[in-house]
């Protein structure tokens, strides 16, 4: 009887006493109790999510942006940004978390171009109100000044 039960280490085999079976049989009865099924399902779900994240990470590259196609701004030094492709969304994204900006496009070139435009727009957006910036934007403005200068 015992050998018919799954041999999962996550499950338990409970012996039912003869009293619980109204003493119909004298031999011990066994019931399979799946006490960890829900936990296993949750763990499987978490593994799937982690695998998906890992796949996304594998597709991510760090690339330098060496100059801006701008008439007004230039970089003091190259900045390093992440380039990734979202398979689900079919979009390329260039991201710079430190400056809190990103660009996107249908291909890498378009994403880089978008990123450079947004960098310039954000610089002048912050500059315009530099005396009125809250703590988070002050920090970003300070970083912009370290990497960008006006021509």
């Amino acid at each position, binding site marked *: 009887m015992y050998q018919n039960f799954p041999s999962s280490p996550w499950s338990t085999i409970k012996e039912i006493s003869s009293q619980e079976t109204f003493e119909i049989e004298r031999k011990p009865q066994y019931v399979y109790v799946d006490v960890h099924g829900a936990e296993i399902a949750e763990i499987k779900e978490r593994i799937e999510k982690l695998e998906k994240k890992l796949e996304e990470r594998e597709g991510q590259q760090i690339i330098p942006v060496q100059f801006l196609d701008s008439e007004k701004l230039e970089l003091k030094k190259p900045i390093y940004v992440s380039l990734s492709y979202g398979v689900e*969304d079919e979009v390329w994204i260039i991201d710079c978390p430190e400056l809190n900006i990103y660009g*996107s496009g249908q291909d890498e070139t378009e994403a880089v171009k978008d990123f450079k435009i947004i960098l310039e*727009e*954000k610089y002048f*957006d912050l500059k315009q109100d530099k005396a*009125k910036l*809250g703590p*988070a934007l002050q920090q970003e403005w300070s970083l912009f000044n370290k990497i960008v200068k006006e021509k």
Partner: protein
Amino acid sequence: MPISISDFKNKVIGKISEKMEIKEIKSHHVRYQFWHKGTKILTTFCSHGGKGKDIRNDILSKIKRELKLNNLQQLYDLKDCPMSAEDYFNLLKQKNVISN
């Protein structure tokens, strides 16, 4: 779960505007500046798009970061109701994005 551009503008930005001043600037993208008591506290932007166009998941996660939200669920909560303008305002205070 994507969010349409019109939902982002009307529901997310619309809700936040109950608690702080929002300035909309149209340029390469549509930029939103969040102001509170004469201080510019946050900026975010969103692509131009026709009615019904969706903001893709990868972009939503960047918007989440710009809005200083902890996770994407909070962005959905801002859109769909569980998170009120007051809740969001308090979150920004907790994170010192808005000075007390």
